[in-house]
């Protein structure tokens, strides 16, 4: 559906281009190549390389890893995300990062603060194991105080059990 729509727009712009030309070409113009399409190419005003905005855009969601209830182990999916984070951090060795540990609301306050600290440290330990200097990484736990998903259901809780990497500009 979405693809069809895009195609429609492309064809319309090709027609518009054709209409502007003063002379008919001797040969038919080649079919609109991808290069010629007005794809939302990276704008020159995109995130500054090495900035937190750049990090977030490069990670496209993988600046966050997620945990099971009451757990803090880094699973295969988390590892892939942390590897991507580590690559970025190694590309910008002057950059520091904070790892935020969060929990869902279905835990007691004190325990969740400790659990969030555990999660942030699990993420940090994995980054360090990939060669990121530990002195560049700090951790902070917000326990259950800063949810991103606001519902009280399994789906929301799964989104809130997380460790978020934020680089420091």
């Amino acid at each position, binding site marked *: 559906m979405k693809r069809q729509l895009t195609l429609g727009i492309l064809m319309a712009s090709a027609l518009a281009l054709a209409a502007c030309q003063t002379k008919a070409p001797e040969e038919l113009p080649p079919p609109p190549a991808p290069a010629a399409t007005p794809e939302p190419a990276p704008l020159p005003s995109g995130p500054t390389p090495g900035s937190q905005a750049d990090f977030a855009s490069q990670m496209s969601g993988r600046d966050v890893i997620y945990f099971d209830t009451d757990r803090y182990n880094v699973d295969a999916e988390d590892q892939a995300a942390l590897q991507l984070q580590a690559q970025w951090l190694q590309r910008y060795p002057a950059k520091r990062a904070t790892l935020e540990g969060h929990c869902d609301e279905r835990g007691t306050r004190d*325990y969740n603060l400790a659990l969030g600290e555990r999660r942030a440290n699990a993420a940090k330990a994995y980054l360090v194991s990939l060669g990121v200097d530990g002195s560049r990484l700090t951790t902070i736990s917000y326990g259950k105080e800063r949810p991103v998903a606001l519902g009280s259901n399994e789906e929301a809780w799964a989104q809130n059990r997380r460790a978020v990497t934020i680089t420091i500009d």
Partner: protein
Amino acid sequence: MKSLLAILALLAAAPLVAQDRPTPPAEQPAADEGLTGSVSDESDWQDLGIAIPGFATDADVATPASSGGTAALGKELARVITSDLRDNGLFLPVGPDVLPQPTYPEITAPAFPTWKSRNADMLVHGYVQGMADGRLTVGCYLYDVALQSELVRGGWVVTPADWRRAAHKCADLVYSRLSGESPFFDSKIAYIAETGPKDHRVKRLAIMDSDGANHRFITSGAAMALTPRYSPDYSKLLYLSYLNGNPRIFVYDIGTGTQRLVAQSSNPTFAPRWSPDGKTILYSMAIAGNTDIYRVSTMGGAVTRLTDGPGIDIGGSFSPDGSRIVFESDRSGSQQVYMMNADGTDQRRITFFGGRAATPEWSPRGDQIAFTHMVGNFRIAVMSPSGDNLRYLTNSWQDEAPTWAPNGRIIQFFRTERNTGRTGLYQVDLTGRNLRRLKTPVDASDPAWGPVLP
């Protein structure tokens, strides 16, 4: 702070002694015998009708405690006493707004036939006098209407600012005499006031009297504040603050408005607790993600690490004699309640109820431990210190963090509403029957009830 100390000193020196205060005329000798048997059973005393008419004054003088002078203040005192009893589900109190006002001489010579005709079992009389130095003398008398005799009396000298304390003392006197329980009204509560959306709650440290009066915000909300605990003498508050960005425990001095870090460490610290004598602080600290419990003197000095396992060990609540600590640990794989000696030795698990057990708080009486039991929903429960005799006091979606009334008969906790994340303070008695929400200016969590003021 200084003024509070002065009052405490005065209270210790002057009050409760009948001959120390100017007594109303025509005082009868007290016949204080023969009633204890009839009020020892809870189910009986709960149904006692108590008339609490306005307190009388010998001379209506101006006082900063009331815009209406001591006469109006007398009525206010009776209202506070009535609310104390009614709001806590104690007895069947009837307040001054629907009762005739006794005269000053009647305070020590009640018109018993009048009160009998109103079906009052018990009668509270009192007086308030403005003293030359501006302070107030408040007298409180409890009478048995059927026996036409005085059961107990008390008197207190307070500054105008502290007039409500005299009412709470009178309510405590009535409650203790009729129930046989220890007093609890003249006490305070620290808690966290909450405002704002669920994903960005503004959390402020706040304090109030046990009845919600004299409410005061301590912090502005700029830095998130959590989990306060009142020092046993009410001079300080331990709490967690994200001041400077990281969670750390501070001890805040209420008198001076200053605070300091409890632990000088780059590591985060959580879950502060006082020992019953106020000389020791427990705190939990995470190092490289592993949280353990530490103790340190209030004066500072050497820190003792009490737990050293790889699990999360957190919180801690002392037995009333200070010899043992009940705490929370997930060393078995899930949150459970453990017991240890105050030096960290002899650690053993005491909860085997299934589910998770958290936030243990030792009753000031020593006979029970309140905690949060999580099996799906979060419920407030009590058990004996041996880990036996589990009893639920609440049944809601999310109730957590119990704190004991100073007499060990009532528990406060906070309740979170599903989806909205709205919070409120609640209290329930040990029967589980009298559950009510406390009035707070905004949403509220993390209550911490302090002891009865001297």
